[in-house]
């Protein structure tokens, strides 16, 4: 399935502040990462819609909310259907990641498109209801040299010749909730007989791709009729 872009719902108060001028709002969910990550799928859309309606009721004001969830917000064709039955909508609240919000804003530039989530990182599930960041999309993958563990992401300093002097008994200087990732790399390389590779000095890294905005272009295959 998709890699998981992990996001968190913004606090209700912040969202209510964003829509304070509007009476008719469309909440849009995303069927991709946001559904799998339990932050912006159809259920979360319904939940937010109800919260907003009730919160406004508590203030004695009526808010009209419509709901829609598209396969992926980052795909132009999937966003077409948002225009149906939503002519009078004053603002769109997207429960997609930052990509989705911008895609919808690009498709419907006349409407305010608001982010209902804070996009956090690319990560993977680590137990029920827990996700951990695993990839920084730095553009220069070195996982072959670090036994499949990413120091750019998992080391708070992102150093390539670790561990630093702050590593204490297997934990990062930041605290005992964070293991020292360079020690984990060391252990895995020791266990698989690759320890000597750690003696090589990692030269200064090319961070130019890690800086945005990035573009990847690939020649698309086109299926031609009759061939």
């Amino acid at each position: 399935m998709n890699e998981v872009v992990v996001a968190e719902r913004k606090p209700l108060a912040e969202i209510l502040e964003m829509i304070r001028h509007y009476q008719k709002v469309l909440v849009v969910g995303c069927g991709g990462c946001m559904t799998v990550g339990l932050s912006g799928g159809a259920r979360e859309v319904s939940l937010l819609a109800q919260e907003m309606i009730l919160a406004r009721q508590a203030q004695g004001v009526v808010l009209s909310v419509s709901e829609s969830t598209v396969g992926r917000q980052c795909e132009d064709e999937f966003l077409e259907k948002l225009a149906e039955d939503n002519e009078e909508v004053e603002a769109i609240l997207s429960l997609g990641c930052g990509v989705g919000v911008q895609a919808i804003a690009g498709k419907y530039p006349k409407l305010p498109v608001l982010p209902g989530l804070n996009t956090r990182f690319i990560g993977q599930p680590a137990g029920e209801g827990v996700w951990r960041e695993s990839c920084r999309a730095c553009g220069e993958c070195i996982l072959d040299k670090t036994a499949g563990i990413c120091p750019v992401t998992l080391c708070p300093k992102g150093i390539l010749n670790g561990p630093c002097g702050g590593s204490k008994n297997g934990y990062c200087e930041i605290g005992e909730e964070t293991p020292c990732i360079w020690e984990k790399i060391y252990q895995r390389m020791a266990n698989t007989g690759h320890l000597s590779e750690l003696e090589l000095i990692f030269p200064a890294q090319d961070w130019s791709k890690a800086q945005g905005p990035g573009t990847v272009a690939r020649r698309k295959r086109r299926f031609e009729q009759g061939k």
Partner: protein
Amino acid sequence: MDAVGFTDNQGAVVRLSSLASAAFWASQGYEAEAILYLTCRDRNRIALQADLLGAYALGIRSVVCVTGDQPKFGNEPQAKTVYDLDSIQLISLVRQLRDEGKFLSGEACSAPPSFYIGGVINPSSEPLALRILRLEKKIRAGADFILTQAVFDLEQFERFMAMVRERDLQHQVKILAGILPVKSPKQAQTLQAQPGLSIPETMLERLSEASVPAKEGLTMALEQMAFLRQVEGVAGINIMGETMGEIVLLVEQAGLYPRPGA
């Protein structure tokens, strides 16, 4: 004292810049030379190379390259970190400037600075084998001298130095052991939370049971200094004190002033 080190926003706390302090010291013509600390936390390779050229131009001849503590520990925890390079890459860079006259980019430097290059290691974190690996990497990257984090656990330090001697590393680089006088149980607790330091139980006990903890702390520091001086492979001592006064006191009481003969 042979030299004075100027740390670079140590503990991620904003202070007078190390470059300014070191340059000022160097301009005063004191016998003790200035050592500049540079961290990778706040500056990218462009700024670091610029600072190296500037430091040299202002008379600084020794630089210690460290990765740098994270902002979480200091007074600006919301700061964005840089870490464009790590300490080993920085050591490598300074050596390349000195020995090849080239910047990191490969371009020639018309007036290459010639620094005495230092690094820092933490000899108190297990597994020690990993610490030795780092020490070797820093040596190969070009370190001329190494400062250790403050040593409190003497037995563990002895084990560490035994591993150093096994590999003959003490002849490849000058190792200076770190001393940090701890003068109260509260200070001990604060230090314990800092990265790279761990204070053994016996020290904490002595401090809490002493009638005048500050005195006991200095006594312990002197004991540590005496021990470290006789450890084979230790080429010198790096005293980290809270005040200049206490450092002077330590140096005098350890019998190191006037400077003993070589």
